[in-house]
Each structure stands twice: as C-alpha cells, then as structure tokens.
C-alpha cells in the first residue's frame, strides 16, 4: 500500500475531468424537474440516522439503484465567516473549534498559524512540538470516530464502541492539558497558552503503547471480514483524475493514488522534523480509503512518538503584541486536517479585526464528490460513501 517515494510528481492528465463527471453536469437540473420524473425520489436526511448530522441528500432511485443525488446543505450554517469579520483575531480563535468539532485542535492550528504568518511571527519550537503532538492525537481521535461511525453505517455495530473507548483516552489527555475535551481551544496565536502538565509525556507514551493493539483489534473485526470487503471494495470509486478535478483532499485523494499530504508537501509547524510515510491507495474505493486511514493512524502514532522523544525545552509563546494589528495584506495558509486540506484565507486591513476570513473546509469540497461516487450504485452504497467521505456537517455548513 505505501511506498517510500516521497512525492508523486507526475503531471495529471490535461483533460479537465472524466467525461463521467461532465455528463453529470449536464444532467444537473434544478429541483423541480428533478422531482417531476417518473423515477422514485426519496429524501435521505436531514433527520436520518446515517447522514452524520443534518445533511439532506435527495436520491433519485430506480428500485435500489441510484440514478443521481443532490445534496442539500446549510442546515447548520452559522455564518462563521461573518462572525470572524466582527471579532478581533484573538476573539475569533475559539469559533474555529466549532467547525470540525471532532478535530478542533487541527482547526485551531490552522487558524493560529495563518494569523502568525500574517503577523510575521513564529511560534517557538517547543510550542510547535506540542502543537504537533496534540494535532496528531486529534487526527487519531477523528479517524477513530470516523471508523466507528463508518462501520456502524455499514452495519458493524461493535467497532463503534471500541473506537469510542480508545478515543476517550485521547480526550482525557486533552482535558488534562487544556480543560476541554472536544472544543479544545488549545492554541493561542503565537504558541500555546499552557505549558504541558506534569506527566504529559508519560500519558502520551502510555497512550502510544496502549493504542496499536487496539488498532489491530479494529482491523481484526473488519479488514478481512468477507462482508466488509464486499461492502467496501469497488464501492464509491473515484478515479485519480476525478479526484483531482473535484479537488478532494486528505485520505480521499490519497486513496485514489495521489501521494500528496500537506505535512510533506508544504511542511508547517514542526512536521519537517519527523519521519513518516504517506499511505496511498490504488483503486480509490471505499476499502482503500479505509486502509489509508487505518495506516494514517499508525503513522500518526509514529509522529507522536518522535515528537515526544525530541520535544525541546523552551518558551511556549512567541512575543506577541497585546493588540494584534497585522499589516494590510492577505494570506492563505492551509494545513492537513484529518479530513483534508483545511485552508484559511485572511485579509487584513490593518485593524484589530480581520477584514475577511475565508475558510476552505475539506468536508465541503469532499462532499461534492458524493454524487459522482454513488451514481449507478445502490442505496446502501450511498451510506457507505457518506461514511467514507468522513464529513462533519459543522464544517460543511460553517
């Protein structure tokens, strides 16, 4: 699955996208005519157990076969970008935790680093290491949650409880570190607010020893299970060209065979110091996305172990002005969140409040790939694909 060559630099096919997708665009009719056809149209969501929140998918069915889908989103829209324009840089920081609420630490990291770049300051090395440890722990937690819910969607009930049990250990570390479990608000612009607590390293190392057998346990339940294989192999296939054209990122892109990870491509925080691999898949099907994420969990553990071993002493906050007034200008900074590329585009007009904050959410863009992935598949595959895209509606809708 994984090979050690760092980057896959082959230029992609100059054709804009697969014909499959373009033909879809011609099909994309407005809602009214969509419902007028003689096929069966059903709503999946917003009140549905398997749409991971308030996602509404309009399915056009022929029996069990999906002829087309249309996502209706926005049920959880809170206007985060508008709020940002009315808050100072510091005040907006906690809001980003509420977007992807299963990976709040990653959100905070991206935002803090973007503002730091805009201010032209840099967090001290110790802070960077703490950031890496927490972010990777959070990636693990996010993947565990994904695995549990994804397996539950496909009908395997038990992994959910296993993953939640183990995720609890991560949340305990978060709680000890910053007092919060989900919406952590762990980082400050310029570094970390808190020094690690007494015994932080010990907890993390204990966790690192605790979790690999658990990951094996999940795999034991699923990876070679015949039904699991039948449900995931060749389901929701997205080709390499389609994946790039659709701008999907994260494990979804990597499962389609593009070896691209922002942690390697444009290292941020302290990622350039660590040795880890970027797992990729070959077919771009649900099973590949599953194996890619499973491998990513193990790689995260590797990163954390290295980070804990090498964590330097020193201050945890850079010198940051009391009142932040970044110079006029704009910045785009993105990080590799558990779900893909999480980007912040911030425009400063020189005041204490950002003039415009644009958040490029990975889930939003990945969700767009749903339609192409489930066309011609069966209803049950829609569930599998929604699960495998690992969307968080808080982030899709912002």
């Amino acid at each position, binding site marked *: 699955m994984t090979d050690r060559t760092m980057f896959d630099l082959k230029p992609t096919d100059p054709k804009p996208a697969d014909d499959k997708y373009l033909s879809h665009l011609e099909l994309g009719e407005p809602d009214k005519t969509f419902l007028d056809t003689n096929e069966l149209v059903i709503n999946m969501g917003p009140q549905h157990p398997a749409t991971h929140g308030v996602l509404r998918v309009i399915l056009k069915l022929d029996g069990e076969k999906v002829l087309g889908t249309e996502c209706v989103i926005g049920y959880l829209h809170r206007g985060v970008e508008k709020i940002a324009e009315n808050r100072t840089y510091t005040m907006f920081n906690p809001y980003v935790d509420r977007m992807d609420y299963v990976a709040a630490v990653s959100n905070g990291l991206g935002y803090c680093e973007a503002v730091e770049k805009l201010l032209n300051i840099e967090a001290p090395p110790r802070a960077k290491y703490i950031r890496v440890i927490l972010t990777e722990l959070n990636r693990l937690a996010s993947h565990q949650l994904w695995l549990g819910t994804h397996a539950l969607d496909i009908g395997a009930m038990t992994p959910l409880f296993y993953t939640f049990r183990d995720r609890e250990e991560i949340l305990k570390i978060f709680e000890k570190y910053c007092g919060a479990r989900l919406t952590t608000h762990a980082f400050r612009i310029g570094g970390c607010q808190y020094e690690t607590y007494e015994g932080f390293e010990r907890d993390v190392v204990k966790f690192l020893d605790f979790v690999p057998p658990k990951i094996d346990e999940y795999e034991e339940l699923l990876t070679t299970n015949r039904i699991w294989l039948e449900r995931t192999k060749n389901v929701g296939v997205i080709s390499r060209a389609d994946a790039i054209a659709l701008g999907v990122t994260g494990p979804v892109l990597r499962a389609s065979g*593009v070896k691209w990870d922002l942690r390697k491509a444009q290292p941020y925080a302290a990622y350039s110091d660590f040795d880890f691999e970027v797992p990729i898949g070959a077919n771009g099907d649900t099973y590949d996305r599953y194996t890619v994420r499973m491998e990513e969990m193990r790689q995260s553990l590797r990163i954390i172990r290295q980070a804990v071993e090498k964590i330097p002493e020193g201050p945890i906050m850079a010198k940051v002005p009391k009142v932040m007034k970044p110079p006029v200008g704009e910045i785009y900074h993105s990080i590799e969140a558990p779900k893909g590329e999480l*980007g912040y585009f911030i425009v400063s007009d020189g005041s204490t409040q950002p003039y415009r904050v644009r958040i490029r959410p990975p889930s939003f863009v990945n969700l767009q790939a749903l339609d192409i992935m489930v066309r011609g598949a069966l209803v049950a595959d829609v569930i599998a694909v929604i699960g495998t895209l690992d969307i968080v509606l808080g982030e899709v809708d912002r």
Partner: protein
Amino acid sequence: MIAKLKGQYGSGICEANTYLGQNYMVVDPSIVSDLLQILRNREQFDYCVDITAVHYPEREKQFDVLWILYSFSKNERIRVKIMIADGESVPSAVSVWATANWLEREVYDMFGIRFDGHPDLKRILLPDGWKGYPLRKDYGIIQQDQEWVKANLGIESGQ
C-alpha cells in the same frame, strides 16, 4: 511562467507579486477565463483549492474574486484575483475544475456574484428564497430575512 503569461496577455495581468512567500496575480476580468484554462492545462495547476471573494464597498469595483490554485507537480500555489463591480458576472470555472461547482455557488450565495456558464447556480448554504447576501459588508451581522423566517419557520425573526 509569469513572464510567459505577461508576454501573452500584456497589460491584462495588472500585477504579479509575492507577499509573505505567496504568489498572487491580479488580472483583468476579461482574460480570466482564458487564463484559468491556461493555468490548468499548460501550467499544470490542476487543483483548484478555493474560489472566494472579498467585498470592498467603498471601492468602485466592489468585489475581489479569487481563485487559489495549486499544482501537484510543481508543489506551488498561486492566487488569481480579479476586481469586478457589483452586478458584473464572472466566467464560471466549472468546465476547468469540477470542484468549482459548489465553490462558485457559495460565492454566489454569500456575495451575489453571478458566474456565467455555471450549470446550476443557486443558493447552497442559505435556503432558496432568502433575500440578501450575508458576506457583503452592508449586511449586518444579526440581520435576517424576516419574511423568509416567518413564512417558512412560522416564528418571528429573532430581532
């Protein structure tokens, strides 16, 4: 690359620069359709990261529309920016990058900028029939479409 593009379009490319290590270029709206095609096909910016806009109400050309692009083969990002006035429309990039579909819909939803050639330009995050474009600077932070709220939710707007 910039030189080549400048040679091709002359004054169409108003500014090409680097700020904080990030490349951007400001171009004329008339050439942006061509330019995006060229960036995609010739310069291998095969991944459209984001499409967004910024509203400057005091300017004559009120909106900045931005394309943030990335090239896997070059490991490089570039921002393409155009400035347009209110009511002007922008060529759609859906045929260049399929991902532009929802991103353009979101820009339309939030700023009211129309994209020509978009297959299905309608609101995405806000409900159909909502009035106003929330990310414009003249839209207040607690403002709501009171009529819509009353008609669809059957409650008084919370203001």
